[in-house]
């Protein structure tokens, strides 16, 4: 892997709910093994962007997506099996969603969907994913208790372990730290830094400094359009040509 190939190629993407356009004219590419940060105030269209990628728009009849979203070289809407597409893409939601299953079953969920049945194989996957999500030591003695009984920060790491169990090509995190304490946030950030070796990550974040700490490149979304996309370093060093970006980064609005 040379880290420069494009995993996801987005051209002229627009998203509307009914007659209300929430995102228009977005063109960007996501490269293999990078962390792409997406920052911007609430309502900028960041979450809709993620939903379009793994075709979660299928659940919202009023959501309309136009443009092209080439994932691994094929437009996501041209994928005949949307389920197979979603299995390649891990998602972490803003609020942790522990499925009403045991810790073990939460992590074994996706592998089981993929047809893995052998207990030994599942055991191995569960342990590996929980370790990589920095949760194993805390839950190894209660794998059989309900995932929803874990603390908020633990649940969020559980959802990361779950996303990893899919062995995804692309991992998308949507403001994962919104309901997580700062210590856990830092631990998850460390996890992401390591995961970068193995997968591509899109990190939508409400914390500008989080993008600065983690992202290789950062895109700034505002009011339904992408203002700019550049290397995180240049963006935060004030090399931006756009006053909105500078104002947002410096905390003048948001």
């Amino acid at each position, binding site marked *: 892997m040379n880290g420069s190939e494009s995993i996801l190629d987005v051209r002229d993407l627009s998203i509307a709910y009914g007659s209300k356009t929430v995102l228009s004219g977005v063109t960007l590419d996501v490269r293999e093994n990078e962390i792409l940060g997406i920052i911007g105030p609430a309502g900028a269209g960041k979450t809709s962007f993620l939903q379009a990628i*793994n075709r979660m728009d299928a659940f919202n009849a009023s959501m309309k997506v136009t443009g092209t979203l080439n994932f691994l070289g094929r437009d996501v809407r041209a994928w005949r099996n949307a*389920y197979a597409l979603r*299995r390649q893409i891990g998602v972490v939601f803003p609020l942790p969603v522990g499925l009403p299953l045991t810790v073990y079953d939460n992590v074994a969920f996706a592998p089981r969907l993929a047809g893995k049945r052998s207990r030994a194989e599942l055991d191995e996957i569960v342990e590996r994913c929980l370790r990589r999500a920095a949760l194993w030591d805390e839950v190894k003695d209660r794998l059989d208790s309900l995932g929803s009984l874990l603390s908020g920060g633990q649940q969020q790491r559980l959802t990361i372990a*779950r996303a990893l169990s899919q062995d995804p090509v692309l991992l998308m995190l949507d403001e994962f730290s919104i309901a997580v304490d700062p210590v856990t946030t830092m631990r998850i950030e460390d996890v992401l830094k390591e995961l970068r070796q193995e997968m591509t990550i899109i990190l939508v974040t409400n914390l500008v400094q989080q993008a600065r700490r983690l992202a290789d490149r950062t895109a700034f979304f505002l009011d339904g359009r992408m203002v700019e996309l550049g290397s995180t370093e240049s963006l935060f060093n004030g090399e931006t040509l756009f006053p909105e970006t500078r104002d947002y980064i410096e905390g003048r609005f948001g």
Partner: protein
Amino acid sequence: MRASLSTDRIDRAWIVDRIVQVLMFLGGISAVVFIVGIFVFITREALQFVFSRFDVVEFFTSIRWAPTSTNNATYGALALMVGTASVTGVAMLVAIPFSLGAAVYISEFATGRSRETLKVLVELLAAIPSVVWGFIGLTIVNGLIIDVFDVPIGLNVLNAGIILGLMAAPIMTTIAEDALKAVPDRYREAAEAMGATRWQMIRRVVLPAAKNGLVSAVLLGVGRGFGETMAVLMASGHSINLPTSPFDSVRALTATIAAELGETAVGSDHYGALFTLGLFLFLITFLINLTADVVVRGIRNS
């Protein structure tokens, strides 16, 4: 300082609050009062018989229910119990797939107008009087069974079971659908985001999460089956029999009480025997509900 103790007085809102609390308490306690009242009444009427004429072995093992025999009255209720149980069993075989299927479809697949229409229709179905169902059993299902299975009589376990199953299905559907709706959408989204198909999502996430409600829906159907009288009376053939096949006519506990109670002298052995059947039904229903409660609690705790 603007605040003062002059605001510390019993005002209208305080009084209304107290009155409402008392009224709500009475509403809540009334359920207990009625249950205890009914139990005491049935038991009192039954006890006289239980202490004088009752024979446990005969009651539970004999199929001879001949309370009107002048020189040798017998009170064997086994056939009646098996009659009720067999009809309820067939009813559940019919009702569970129908109601769970309908509930899953309404909750997970149907959208917009078709969904609302379906819900209204299901509720309408639940409102059909049981005597109408009995009539359908007596005429349509009876003829169907005779034609399809080539048997002499169509009023039997199968007929009553089908009718009872169709009767119980709507209310079971409604309760099961409520249980499915109570499963938060974020579970569905999370599962689908992981690449679960609709059916995988339903089977692995939604159904397990709704298990409590689904179990209560089924047990409610069983309770309904034990308690239903008119339709079973009309469709079962009402003849005392230990059924060996679904095509045998049977008689149910409830139907026996309904058909015979009007003909008995108050205080007679026969009268007491019918109340004993009632007490037995009451205890069975109580047991079913208790089981449901324990099961649901067990699921909740684990």
